[in-house]
């Protein structure tokens, strides 16, 4: 007889590994990324490539320092997912050193200083995003104008110029401007929503121009993840329904005091990315189904609050991080009743 395997039961496994889950998440990012490239040029792709490279190098270095099995943990794809999510959240115009700084915060500080994958209380990509937004508010809000507002998207050369921090041929201002959410939040002319919509080229068919398609792309990816049972419906449904519900409550008939329609909120900024890709990060989310509904609702609420009353209309990251803070509390109060115990 050959060397016999000895292990404690069960001796069977479903065969789904972390790497599989992470790969599916990466795959699900493709439609959203495609829309971003279509409307804003190649900047995000440059970010993705650059950040993935950096993430792998940093992860390997830290794993080595921490005396962990480098190949095993690199192979879980978690660093790549963090890199891609951060790249998708960053404006396509950020210079290389800013992303370097960001991914260092994500991988080294937010992830490994807390004990590595599974032990980090805060979503690494969102932690990095929040840090960068607070430290470099100008660079982090330098979003490109979407195709349709701008005559064309930046060429690969232009995007590369942004990347290496050189002013492109036509100057930064030719491409960049406030985001739709930002201008909606900061409108001073007391217009009705319909007037604002008509007059502002940033507004699209049902939400912000360009962004509505980016969000549709992430929604598609999210549905794919649901279909593949990589994520459960609880968190995204709770985030989006809370966001939509609040938008309905504060719509105010589209008056000048309105905070925008539910469709605007659902399909602008980082709504779908946050609901399906960020808030569902299992490491930093609530664990029980009931807890996930509460956690999602909290994030939906905070997204709306950020957009409507804070200085960071694109501050989805803050909403997620504040949600992360609440997780231990939510988990404590939503323990399920064990079978055979008092109801």
């Amino acid at each position, binding site marked *: 007889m050959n060397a016999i395997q000895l292990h404690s039961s*069960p001796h*069977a496994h479903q065969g789904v590994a972390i790497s599989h889950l992470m790969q599916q998440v990466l795959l699900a990012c493709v439609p959203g990324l495609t829309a971003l490239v279509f409307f804003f040029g190649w900047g995000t792709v440059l970010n993705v490539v650059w950040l993935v490279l950096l993430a792998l190098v940093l992860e390997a270095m830290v794993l080595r320092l921490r005396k962990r099995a480098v190949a095993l943990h690199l192979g879980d794809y*978690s660093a790549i997912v963090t890199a891609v999510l951060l790249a998708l959240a960053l404006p396509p115009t950020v210079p290389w050193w800013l992303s370097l700084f960001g991914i260092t915060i994500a991988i080294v500080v937010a992830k490994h200083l807390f004990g590595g994958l599974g*032990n980090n209380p805060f979503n690494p990509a969102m932690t990095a995003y929040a840090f960068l937004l607070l430290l470099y508010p100008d660079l982090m809000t330098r979003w490109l104008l979407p195709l349709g507002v701008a005559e064309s998207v930046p060429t690969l050369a232009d995007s590369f110029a942004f990347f290496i921090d050189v002013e492109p041929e036509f100057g930064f201002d030719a491409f960049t401007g406030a985001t739709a959410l930002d201008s909606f939040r900061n409108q001073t002319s007391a217009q009705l929503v319909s007037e604002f919509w008509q007059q502002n080229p940033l507004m699209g068919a049902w939400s912000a121009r360009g962004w509505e398609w980016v969000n549709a792309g992430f929604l598609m990816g999210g549905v794919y993840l649901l279909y593949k049972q990589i994520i459960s419906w609880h968190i995204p449904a709770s985030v989006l329904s809370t966001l939509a519900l609040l938008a309905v409550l504060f719509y105010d008939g589209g008056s000048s005091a309105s905070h925008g329609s539910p469709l605007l909120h659902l399909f602008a900024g980082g709504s779908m990315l946050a609901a399906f890709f960020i808030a569902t990060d299992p490491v930093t989310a609530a664990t029980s189904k009931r807890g996930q509904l509460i956690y999602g609702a909290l994030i939906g609420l905070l997204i709306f609050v950020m957009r409507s009353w804070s200085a960071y209309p694109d501050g989805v990251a803050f909403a997620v991080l504040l949600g992360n803070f609440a997780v231990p509390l939510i988990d404590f109060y939503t323990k*399920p009743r*064990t079978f*055979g115990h008092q109801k």
Partner: protein
Amino acid sequence: MSTSTTRTVWPIPGGIYPLDHKQQSLGTAIRQVPLPSQLVIALRQPSHAPAVLCVNVGDHVSKGQCLAQGSDATGLSIHASTSGTVLAITEHAVPNESGLPELCVILQPDGENHWTKLPALADFRNYDAARLISRIAEAGICGLGGGAMPSATKLRAALLNKVHTLVINACECEPFITCDDALMQASADDIVAGIQILLHISAANRCVFAIEDNKPAALNAMRAALTDSGIELVVVPSIYPSGAEKLLIYSLTGSEIATGTLAVEQGFLCFNVSTAHAIARAVVHGEVLVSRITTITGSALVNPGNYCVLLGTPINELLKHAAVDQTKVSSLIHGGSLTGIALTSNNVPVLATSACVIASTAAEIPAAEPEQNCIRCGFCTEVCPVLLLPQQLYWASKSEQLQQATTLNLHDCIECGACSYVCPSHIPLVQYFRATKADIRIAEEKLLMANQSRARFEFHQARKAAEKIQEEQRRATRATLAHQQLEQTATPSLAQAAIAAAMARVKAKKALQDFAAAVDAASNNLTTADSQADNTAAYLPNPDQQDDSR
């Protein structure tokens, strides 16, 4: 009551749908394994109390003869699986978690297979519960589904508690195992007889026969056999672990058995279908438990299937008979793939609980992947059939927070393995939970011992203090008594002593005076005789030397 299959089934919480691997052992009818050259009959007792031997080394025994009995009421009788000679009574490796050897009778078959049966109680309705239970005890019937609980013990408990529902568990939800399936196809009538006996003993007013929907042939056989029997046939969905006792009762009735209690305390009596069959054989045919159906399966075998195996048959003989390809065997498992025990050696015997032996290839049961970090995905929580939070239990287990693990109801874990099965980080959760349960047990034992020691010490201290007080009291009493005695008797004794002393003094004085007188007389005589003889003076006694010379 009519046989029905359309009744509400409460879906169990969680559960998984593993590949069942059942077809490979269902290709043929039940086959007989030839008599092995040696049988190793384990004497394990459910209470772990030592068995009381009924035979000696060298004895010739007949098939069905009792080899050992339990030392108490929960004990299990063990019988010779065939006729032959007791070669040795020694410790031998058996399929168990610890890998430690257990006391076994080594039996050399004589090839006669001479069977001494008990008198058949074919018309069991003529006998009362006590008689039938004692027969079941005598026949050494125990839970063949894996519990190994002596059936007589269970039935006695059932008589103490008012049982309303008898549940026959034919779910066989674990992958690879098909022995119950094969038994139902082959011996449906005996099974029904066994159920009738259990109904007669327990006086339950309803009986539910539960079978998973993945056994159509067995279902048909049972449906035919159960017609007009008054026994309800319920088909439950195939989901692992639907056959766990408390979960099955929930599926069938919606009642949850409270934590820490037995199903029987809430009026449910649960028997495995093969146990019911063994009971029928024991009562109706007088056959003690000497064999069982065992699924011998796995891709490393040429002839997987269900075999009728004598208890004590070495597993290597079974594998040989099923034409094992030793080069392909990568793991050898006693039991199913989700709760079974990985064997270190194939030189272990078949036990009454040996429902299945898997000789698997590496492709079928791959080696465990290296453990990675928990990403809190919650898959384990979704599949946990008893609604635990395996992920949080894992954190508590890993950091050895025993109190936290207890608070999270670790003791409700049935170790079904669903959580480990789905964990994308390949964390052996069940292994962690078993270790933590053991740690808690050890901590509790230590606490118990510490409490006992403290109680003993405190008792010792109290006793010492009490003794000291008693001693002091005794001493005080003695002193008082002595003093009183002294007062009562002191005067006369002193007077006597004084008289005696005075008399002694008088005597001594008198003696001295007598002596002095004698000396005087002598000196007078000497003076008078001085003229007569001068030398005689030298011979006169010297009064100073008187004492020395005498």
